[in-house]
């Protein structure tokens, strides 16, 4: 058990872990078929988010801006918003157009909900089939996952209504921490029980990296518009990730479909709960393949624990990914002396982390030094600097992963994904031991604290650092 610390006294953020909530909102909207996010702010708000998304996914990212200038900043941006929506509806004809306010419009306290209503009325038939979604991500609270959650809530709010139930159909509200590979794995698992599902959002159909037959100015795939209209036509709603709870509650309230929230789907216990839930819903025993996967996970945990037990792991991740990663590494017997996250999400207090900070990547490095060093760092690519300074390898997880290809296809949910993650952690720790020689192989041996600039030997980790992507 731990308590969350916020470094209130610190004014300067050094090497942020956090990205902006509107970026997360935009990403969620890209998981809807023919979706197009529109950031209501200055051009840079869109440009920065776009570049970072492109660098992580290595895919075209349709993302537009209302391009607020100084006049609109003073007088209000509603005219630009209307012009942007008009242009987009006539040019790109998205199925879903998601409007994401930014810090700029939040600071002005623009009444976007009212503006959008007025615009929809004025545009009338010009809007065509386009569904307007208001995705008010709280720019000043949290990061990517909070923005993502707000956008999903906005989609549910705009689309969900009661429908006749379809037995055996599940709506999965997928959290921001799930990769394309995770979504594929969830779908496969659900279908293994003879159930069908709608994933919302569904990046596995949009940003999975494929070669389409034509150029598209909107998202390449994702949850189809028809499936949005049918969100109420399910037997059950499954939200994966605690941050999806508000959207799940809203969907249940709108449609009457009972919703279940699973904080995580990573690790043996979480995968067991998921399988039990599916088994109950489908009214059938887990199929042989799923049982075999569980057996393999048990074996993987046993094999992996030798390298892991007693090792010290520092984790930098948004709340729900942090929960998944901490659960698995502590299941393997690692200690987590330090973890850093982006916001004070409820439920994190119970995680087996010795020190949990709401902070940045510099806090991770400083706190890990203070704790006597660590053997492995898990976090996004920008955590490489901290990992190097600590003389520990970096296992990449989360967003952004700028120096890896294929990060979207790394799986960490269910029996199979948990198995893969256990292997990745153990192998990363083993590589580190080999690199540093046998003195380090004994987890009880004292670990030299490295201060300041990394030595040449420590820098070696950059070239040989393991990747969650392999």
């Amino acid at each position: 058990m731990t308590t969350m610390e916020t470094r209130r006294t610190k004014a300067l953020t050094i090497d942020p872990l956090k990205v902006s909530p509107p970026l997360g909102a935009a990403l969620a909207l890209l998981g809807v078929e023919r979706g197009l996010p529109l950031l209501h702010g200055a051009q840079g708000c869109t440009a920065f988010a776009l570049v970072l998304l492109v660098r992580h996914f290595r895919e075209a990212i349709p993302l537009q801006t209302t391009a607020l200038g100084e006049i609109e900043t003073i007088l209000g941006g509603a005219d630009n918003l209307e012009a942007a929506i008009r242009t987009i509806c006539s040019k790109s004809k998205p199925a879903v157009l998601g409007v994401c306010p930014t810090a700029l419009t939040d600071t002005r306290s623009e009444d976007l909900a009212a503006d959008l209503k007025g615009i929809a009325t004025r545009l009338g038939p010009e809007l065509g089939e386009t569904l307007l979604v208001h995705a008010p991500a709280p720019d000043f609270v949290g990061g990517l996952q909070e923005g993502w959650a707000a956008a999903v809530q906005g989609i549910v709010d705009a689309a969900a209504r009661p429908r006749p139930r379809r037995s055996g159909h599940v709506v999965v509200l997928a959290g921001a921490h799930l990769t394309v590979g995770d979504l594929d794995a969830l779908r496969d698992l659900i279908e293994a029980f003879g159930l069908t599902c709608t994933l919302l959002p569904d990046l596995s159909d949009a940003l999975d990296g494929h070669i389409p037959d034509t150029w598209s100015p909107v998202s390449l795939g994702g949850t189809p518009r028809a499936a949005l209209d049918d969100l109420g036509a399910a037997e059950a709603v499954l939200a994966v990730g605690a941050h999806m709870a508000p959207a799940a509650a809203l969907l249940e309230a709108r449609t009457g479909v009972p919703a279940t929230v699973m904080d995580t789907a990573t690790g043996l216990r979480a995968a067991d709960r998921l399988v039990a839930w599916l088994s109950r819903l489908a009214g059938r025993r887990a199929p042989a393949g799923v049982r075999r996967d569980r057996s393999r996970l048990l074996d993987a945990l046993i094999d992996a624990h030798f390298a892991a037990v007693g090792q010290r792991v520092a984790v930098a991740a948004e709340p729900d990914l942090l929960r998944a990663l901490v659960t698995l590494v502590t299941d393997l017997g690692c200690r987590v002396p330090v973890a850093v996250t982006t916001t004070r999400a409820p439920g994190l207090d119970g995680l087996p982390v010795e020190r949990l900070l709401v902070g940045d990547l510099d806090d991770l490095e400083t706190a890990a030094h203070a704790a006597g060093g660590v053997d492995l760092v898990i976090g996004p690519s920008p955590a490489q600097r901290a990992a190097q300074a600590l003389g520990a390898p970096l296992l990449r997880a989360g967003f952004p992963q700028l120096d890896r290809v294929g990060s979207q296809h790394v799986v960490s949910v269910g029996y199979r994904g948990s198995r893969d993650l256990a292997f990745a952690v153990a192998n990363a720790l083993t590589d580190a031991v080999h690199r540093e020689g046998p003195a380090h192989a004994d987890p009880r041996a004292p670990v030299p604290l490295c201060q300041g600039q990394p030595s040449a030997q420590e820098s070696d980790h950059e070239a040989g650092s393991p990747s969650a992507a392999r």
Partner: protein
Amino acid sequence: MLTDRLAPVFDEPACATNRAKTDADRKAGCRTKGPAPGAAAGGCAFDGAKIALQPIVDAAHIVHGPIACEGNNWDNRHAASSGPDLYRRGLTTDLGEMDVIQGGEKKLWRAIREAVERFDPPAVFVYQTCVPALIGDDLHAVCQAAAERFARPVIPVETPGFVGSKNLGNRLAGQTLVDHVIGTVEPETTTPTDIALIAEYNIQGELWQLTPLFERLGIRLLSCITGDARFRSVAQAHRARAAMVVCSQAMLNVGRGLRERWGIPFFEGSFHGVRATSEALRGFARLLVERGAPADLIDRTETLIAEEEAAVWRRFAPLRDRLAGKRVLLYTGGHKSWSIVSTLQDMGMTVIGTSVRKATEDDAARARALLGEDGQLFGAIPNAEMYRMLRDGEADIMLSGGRSQFVALKARRPWLDTNQERHHAYAGYAGFLVLAERIALTLDAPVWPLVNGPAPWDDGWDPDWDDGWDGTATGEGLA
């Protein structure tokens, strides 16, 4: 107040295009009509300012704003450093709700103090963004007080994103250097061959492809603005004997500032391509000799050019056949719309078209002259049309920036990044060869025949299919 500072930036007297305008046009400035909401692409003024100043490697660069401005953006350029890496740290006040309500000045003050205590930088640049500008944080007052308290320059960069485009931000950053930095430090020694490079950002180490040339000529690079720069070296730029503005759209005002305040002559040029590089070296030699450098510098420069050019063509020979006749679609901006055309033509390639959507009229005229009848001048090409051109095999390769890369890649056609996110250094004679080699490697990469071949369910597939790819796109074998 802001408008007062913006107007002169748009009316650039050193700009040939600007001078050629009528009085009325000039008064309107070179600011293009604002971006179209819902159909705009490109960064904001803050983005442009950060790009232009961040290569000062030993300074702390603090972004005063909410997380979007730095959290989505830090360490995303490839400007290289030969030493300090403080410029790569993501430093921000990460403004929250309470800061908006109470004002962000105190937090900014404390952030500057923390940066000084932690990193002890020779100078701190503080970037204003939209939100603190809107709530009225007085950046200048905080910076002035901090400079006094912490006994080092703390420089306000007043470029909230909403004031305009990335290019405007480049210019405002240049003006900030002229107003607050250049002329504040005296060099320990000066020589008659001291030069300044302006708007050379050392992307992927391009500056280091040039410094050996200067060294061989006995020319001292006193100040590079801002590639691999130390704060002190930028601050002493006013003692240069001659200057060159590399990317004129970005920082012509810095060249003019040097000329007006300190009488330093400058010229505009480029280091992309053999001819451009030779011209740039000649330009420096001429200006330096005019200002008192030994007259033999001109002859020595000609000797070096002759040697280097001969060496380039000798080393280029093995690549010539691989590149000859290959058709290039060039989609870039500014002076690159013609300077790269001439470079590619020197390589024996055919430029089927270049985009002049971000070029001045002068740039466009030069591009037209170079292209002759073979190539087209394009404005903005819609992505769908660009996709069709590539898919239909109208070009063998596209050279462009990251924004359009996926149009080529999804059309399964070779593509090479020639913009600021590029992964290789293409400056000077050495860079010409690197570019030629990268183009050849990209064109001949085995993935193109592989990904353009038929699938097992297509007509024409057989288990032993051989692509017979000759690097020429035919449009066959499409799904």
